[in-house]
Structure formats: C-alpha cells, structure tokens
C-alpha cells in the first residue's frame, strides 16, 4: 500500500474585474520571487484557412511595443529588473509570462497592461517579426529531419481545418499578413474579457489586488470573440500516407489517434495508459520493442491535450533491416493486450507514485504555478483545480484504463504516417527503417533558449516526466550561474 503523501494545498484567490478580466492570486513567501502569467483565449484553433500562423505571429507582435513601451523594450525592462520572460502559442491559447524579483511586480503589471490596451503595430515591426517567425520555422521545422512529417500527422489526424493545421503556419499565409489583419486580430482577441492574469509568489495580497486594479481596470472590454467549432467527425477507416523528407537520414513512422477532450474520464485514463505504454524504461512498448525484440532504436509518444478532440501519437525509429509492418503489429498487439487484460497492480502503484512525485515537484516553481492557475482559470473557470485535479487522476481505476484503451486505441480507427528519406520522385526502398521521433508540437517560446555550453548544464539526466507533464509548464530552468539567461 503506497504511503500517503501530504501535498500542500496552495491558497488561491480569484476575482473578476468589471471589464471581465479574470484574476488569480496565489501568495507564497518561500522565495522572494514572483511570476505573472497572462493567458489569452486565442490559439491556432481560431485561425481560418489562408490565415494560418497568425496567433503565433501575433504573439511576436505583442513584444513590439505599445503606447508607453517602445519596440523590444519589453525584453529590456524585464532583463534589467533581474527577470526572465517568454511567450508561447498553442492550438488553445497564447500565453505571456515573466518571473522577477518580488519587488518588481508593478513593472510586470505595467508592461502586461500596456500591451493589452494599446499595442503599437507598424509595417516595419510586422515585417521584422514576420522574418523572425520565418526563421523560427526554418530552424525548428524546415531545417530539421522529421519535424515537418510530424506536422503532417496532425493534418491527417484531424479533419477540421481549425484543428489540423500547425501553429507555425505556412510561409505563404505568413507572407500575406497585413497590418490591418494584425490590428483586427488584436481588437477581437486581445481583450480583458478574453484573458486571465495570474500571479504566484512572494507578494502582499492587498497590494497585488490594488496594483491589478490600477493597471487593468480601465482597459475596456470588447465583444466576446466569435466561438470556434473544433468538432471532429468520428473516423471510420484507417488513414495512411507517406511523407518524403530530404533531411531524414533513415525512415521513421508515426501513429495517431483521436481521443476525447481534456478533463473527461477517458482522457484521464488515456493519459495514464500512455504513461504505461511509452514513458520510461519500464514502459510496455519500450520493453517490448527496444529491449525485447530489439527492433526499435527509440519510441516516443505523447498526448496533444485540447479542449476539443485531442490526439495521442506514437513515433518510432526502427532499426534498419526490420519490417515496419511487424513492428506496427507488435504495437497494436500491445495495445490489444492492455485493452483486454488491463494494467497490473504494480503498474497502478507506479502511476500513483509518479503522479504524486510530479505533483509535488512541479509545485516548487512560481512560474509553473502561475501558468497552471491561469490555464485552469481560462479553460475551466476554476483555478482551484490546481489543488484538486490530481485526485481525478489518482482515482482512475485499472478497469477504466482498460476500457479507454479498448475504445480509443485498440482500433483500426487510426492514422499511420511513414516518413521516407528522399524527395518525392524517389521511390522508397523496401523495408523502411528507423527515424528519429520528431519533436512533439510543444509551443515554442518567443525567445529561443541560448545555446547550452557543456559545463553549464549538469551531467545529462533523464528528467522524470509524467505523461501529463505538459510541455509549456513553467521551466524554472536550473539556470546555471555560468552565463545563462
């Protein structure tokens, strides 16, 4: 019987300003730092065909100046105050966040409120950031093996264009963005009634409340943005495709399934199932394929968590000389086994301890707290889920895991993408080999990480990541004293 761990409850206060801005406060004096997170309810899901990449491009524009803050001064103000900051865009939302010495809370609120109310958009700034975004696309996607193939998987998995296209967008759509487009985007989506501000860390509650009201209360609300339809048809047949990749050194393949939205009972169960299937070296697929049959170099997977239909994917680098069809059959057999036999008791214990460990460990960071609180406030209107959501995972039973796998994964209702080295006019050689698992479509930060220098990073370690550890969570970064931002 696993021991009971007391996970500290964090005190949460929430209120809404007259203009609709939701505010969440979580006071904690453990360390003299404070994190502020501002979440806007706009992501790539809100983009229409011909305008892909806008939410992300717009995120860049938010750093280009507002009425009282010159272009890129945002970076300067935060850095000079001894802080770190960034922003990211996903299918679901655009977030902005900073962590500062505790006494610099007014600065953060001034900066965030100024750009919420009065963004300054010029053709020059737009052209400049379009270029930065296009270089980001080249860096992360076009100049890397496999990653564009991975985007193709999402196009195949989701039928609704709102869900299927990538957050980075296409070069053509980015080229066609105009200043008027950007201004309209701001008007519609960047309104206080479409946003959450959360503050976690070392502050005085009355003082923080006063500052929030001072800086945000006079920002006028806007009409609510149009609702977005993210519904998906239920697939009735397997979909298969081939993606030709000139930069891929060896072949790879990816499998994708549609799964129910976040915070539904099957979603919780599938999150835990994914952990059993491919997280860590005791996971079923790792043991079966990497260790047992030794046909696979690497296997990775993840869940793309959305408010609408979500996705579960598995990416495989097979070893050369192996039949891909056999590897795929092994994977489906393992899914079938989990779907019919369910998890073992030791596996449930593993899940329990992993959930608790992650739950406790993540809490150390004010940035993680600010971001998680903002997300629960934005999506669910319930920031208090920060303290209670873990229970929804802990109470999932083995039978529920079994049933969720049976319903959603042990099925022909899935997507298969082969990534083949070479150009399209080159016929693939017969058996397809391995490929490196592409990066999951984690929202990329506005500011890329500076290059890691060898001694600055501590010895290579595999971090503990629960399947439910989201990739845009506060990265406190064990920043080293030796020259990191």
């Amino acid at each position, binding site marked *: 019987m696993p021991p009971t*761990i*007391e996970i*500290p409850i964090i005190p949460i206060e929430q209120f809404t300003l007259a203009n609709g801005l939701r505010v969440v406060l979580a006071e904690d004096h453990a*360390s003299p*730092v404070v994190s502020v997170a501002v979440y806007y309810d706009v992501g790539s899901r809100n983009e229409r065909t011909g305008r892909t990449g806008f939410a992300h491009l717009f995120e860049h524009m938010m750093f280009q100046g507002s*009425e*009282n803050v010159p272009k*890129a001064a945002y*970076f300067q103000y*935060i*850095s*000079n105050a*001894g*802080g*770190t900051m960034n922003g990211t865009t996903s299918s679901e939302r655009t977030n902005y966040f900073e962590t500062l*010495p505790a*006494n610099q809370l*007014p*600065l953060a609120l*001034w900066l965030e409120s100024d750009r919420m*109310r009065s963004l300054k*958009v010029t053709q020059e700034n737009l052209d400049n950031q379009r*270029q*930065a975004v296009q*270089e*980001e696309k*080249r860096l992360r996607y076009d100049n890397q093996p496999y990653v564009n193939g991975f985007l193709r998987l999402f196009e195949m998995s989701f039928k609704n264009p709102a869900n299927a296209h990538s957050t980075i967008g296409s070069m053509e759509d980015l080229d066609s963005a105009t200043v008027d487009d950007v201004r309209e985007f701001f*008007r519609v989506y960047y309104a206080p009634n479409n946003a959450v501000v959360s503050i976690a860390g*070392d502050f005085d509650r009355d003082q923080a409340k006063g500052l929030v009201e001072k800086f945000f209360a*006079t920002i006028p609300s806007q009409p609510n943005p149009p609702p977005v339809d993210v519904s998906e048809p239920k697939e009735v047949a397997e979909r298969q495709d081939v993606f030709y990749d000139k*930069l891929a*050194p*060896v072949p790879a393949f990816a499998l994708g399934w549609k799964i129910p939205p976040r915070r539904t009972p099957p979603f919780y169960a599938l999150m835990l199932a994914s952990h059993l299937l491919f997280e*860590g070296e*005791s996971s079923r697929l790792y043991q079966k394929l990497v*260790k047992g049959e030794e046909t696979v170099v690497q296997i990775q997977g993840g869940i793309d968590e959305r408010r609408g239909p979500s996705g579960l994917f598995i990416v495989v*680098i097979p070893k050369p000389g192996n039949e891909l069809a056999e590897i795929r059959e092994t994977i489906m057999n393992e899914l079938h086994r989990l779907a019919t036999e369910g998890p073992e008791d030791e596996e449930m214990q593993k899940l329990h*301890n*992993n959930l*608790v*460990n*992650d739950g*406790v*460990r993540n809490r*150390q960071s004010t940035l993680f707290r600010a971001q998680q609180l903002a997300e629960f406030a934005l999506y669910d209107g319930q920031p208090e889920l920060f303290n209670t959501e873990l229970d929804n995972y802990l109470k999932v039973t083995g039978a529920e895991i079994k049933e969720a796998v049976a319903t959603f994964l042990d099925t022909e209702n899935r997507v298969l993408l082969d990534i083949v080295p070479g150009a399209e006019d080159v016929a693939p050689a017969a058996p397809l080999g391995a490929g490196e698992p592409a990066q999951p479509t984690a929202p990329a930060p506005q*500011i890329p990480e*500076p*290059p890691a220098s*060898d*001694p600055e990073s*501590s*010895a*290579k370690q595999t971090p503990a990541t629960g399947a439910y550890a989201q990739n845009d969570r506060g990265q*406190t*970064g*064990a*920043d080293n*004293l030796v*020259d990191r*931002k």
Partner: protein
Amino acid sequence: MAINQNPTEAESFRAVAPEPLPPRPLNIPQFVETKLANGLDVVLLEDHRLPLVSFRLAFRAGDANDPANLPGLSDMMNALLNEGTESRTSLEIAEQVERLGATLSAGANSDYTTIAASALSVYSDQVLELLADITLNPSFPENEIELTRENAKQMLIQQRAQPNFLAGERTASVIFGQHPYAIVSPTPESLDAMSRDTLREFHRATLVPNNAVMVVVGDVTRDAIIERLNALFGQWQPRTPPQSNFPDPPVRTRRQAYVVDRPGSAQSNIIIANLAINRTHPDFFPMLVMNTILGSNASSRLFMNLREEKGYTYGAYSSVDARRVLGTFRASAEVRTAVTGDSLKEFFYELDRIREEEVSEKEIGDAKSYLTGVFPLRIETQEGMVDQLVQLKMMGLPDDYLHTYRERISAVTVADVRRVARNHINPDKAALIVVGDASEIISQIKPYTSNIEVYDTEGRVKTDLTDESVGA
C-alpha cells in the same frame, strides 16, 4: 499608430515604468559538509518545505578522461550502469525505480560524472540503495552492452542529420585540437572496441569515493542520511583517482572558416569561436557581465541587432563556456542562408564594438541588475540548488560562492568589461564555423576570410580553399 481599444483620458501614470516595491531579502541556505572514512565527501542541505529529495553523486572525472582511442567510453559506461547489477536485471532496476515514481540516471560532461536520483522523500532509503547498487555493483551484461552499442550507432546517424550537432562538432575539433575537449561523440569503431573488460576496468578506475562528492538536498535529516550513506558506501575502497594530463589546444594565428556543407540547408548555423577562460579564472565575473551585455539574452546586443533590427534569425547569442581546464567564447546564430554574409558583418561589428568602446554605465548597470536579479531563480527549486552545489564542488569554487556571487557581480567595472573583451574575444584569429549550403555561402564568407576549409557532414575534409591553394 497605437491601437487603443477605446482610448480613455490620458492615464499619465502609465507614461513611465513604475517604481519597484521595497526589496525582499534572499535567504541563501548554507550546506553542511562531512567526509566518510573512505574519502567520500558529503554535502547536505536540509529542505523540508516539500516532501522531496535529490541526490547527486558527482565524480571529478568526465569524458575528457576517456582514453584517446575510445571516445564515448564514459557515456557508454554511464548508460550501462542501470542496465544490470550483481543482484538486479535491467528490467528490475527500471521497474523498481519507476514504481517509486523516482528517477535514476548517470551521465557525464567534459569534467565530471554525475549519478543522479530524485524521489519523494518517503522513498529516500530505497532510491539511495538503488543509486548505491548501480554505482558499486554494475554487472555490464554482454547483451546490454551489445544493445546499447547498436543503438548508439543509430544515434550517430541521427546526429549527423542535425545542423547544430555538426556545428558543435566542428567547433570543438578546431578549437581544442588534441585536447580531449575536442571529442563530442563516439565513433562506430570506438563503440565496437568497448568490451566488457574495458568497461569494468574503466568503472573501477573512474568511480572512486575519494574523488567524489555526494550532494543531498531535500527533506531528509543529517544524522539519518550520514548513517545510511555509511551503511551503503562505507565498504567502497578508495583508489588513486584518474590523472588528467591533457595535450594543449592549438594556438590560433589567423581567422579561418570551416564550412560544413549541408546541401539544401534552409539556414546557416554560424559559430564564431576562440579559446577564452576556464571556470576559476579571475576574469570569470567580468566575463559574465560582458557576455550579458553582448549576447546572453533577448535584451543583449546580438539579439537586438540580428533579430529585432535585421530579422536575420530567430535568435543570436554569445556564450562563455568556462570548463575546469579550458574554455571558449562563442557567438552564434542560425540565419537565413541568403543573409549569411550580412550576419557575419553584424557579428564582427558587435565583437569589435565591445572590444573597442567602453560600455555605458547604464548598460553595465542593467547587466549587473539582470545577473543579480535572476540569481534567486537558480536556487528556487531543489533541482536548481542541487545543480549549483554540484558545480561548486566539481569546479573547485569556494564554499561561500553562492553567498558572494551577487557582490562579485556588482564589483565589475566598465574598464573590466573592456579589458576582458579585448583579452578573450579575438575576432581576427577566431574560428568561423558555418554549417549550410556551401554552394550558397562560400562566396558570402570570403569577404571575412579567404582561409576556408570545407567538410562534408561525415566530418571529412572536402576541399581546402585557403589562399595557398587554387580556389574558385
């Protein structure tokens, strides 16, 4: 034109940045230290805020200690430590660790090797016993060696498809030369040559208690931990630690470009590099301040120039890579292929500027404010703190390093910044590494140096376009 949602009357309080609140003090805890009879140093910081514990067993020998004919031996050994011990199989280790919700792994950088474990503190005893088992009793099963070897060979193929790996590989090679810091990965030949006997002997020789520090941070108590460490590690015998007598790196006499031809590249990965300082060099703190101004973050000169002004790149940076023995200065970015030459122009402009002109009082004040301000973030979490303590011990920094860090930053002057920039940034003799489409970029590089070597992605020289040879 500023878009105001619906401009109300002027809110004049917004016109300037608000004043900060009164500063809040930072409490930097001090560790306690003791030594076991076999020489194992123990550093302990109790932290009972959350029920977590982190262990780092760190050894003052890293992959620079790999035999010259066996690059990657440390990595191989570390990868195999948790693939079997005298009493546990690979699967049993994985299952037992993961069942606790814990992590256990081993890895090395150039200078030190770390065996790391983290867990809920209620499982502290169990995870420490597992850490001891893989450290003291690894069995290096033949089948696991074979599997790890084959997978490592596949990963070499993957690495060569990644431009940032190629850039780092070429930089290390040309800057460090015969010094072992030049080695960044194994070769298929070295992997094939790593026998079980070699691994076992390397393990015995490298992981010795009297060359190691056990750092413990978290929800444990001193007496209990010391007792447990004595029980688990007390029988571990000291040995003469591995010696480090490394050949010197080459002395650079001229600026030279090294192009790694990657046809079809959408970008050029640029690194401009030269040797600089090691970790304990007296110029370390001025270099940190200088680097903050020049290129450590988004408010620095390189980022503001190459991205925010010119739009050449997603990010441009500089870094001070100060290792135990040697170090480098680097400036780098991934830029659109067509502006490779223009980017080099801006890089050299900024490198010259920071050497020739004194930085302003505002700039140095801002840089110091940044470095002292973000300092608490580095120790906000247990992982951050344990990392700092490992570095402190492994790099031979003073015990009060964390406590004096901020004042040492504050003491750096404008003259210091210029002095270290002039001494440790050498654009005229730098190595210029560019990974990209050679057919598009060689002509763009020529204005900056006519000494150009070209490599393929396997690391072999293609053509030498130094001015002595007949070049295009």
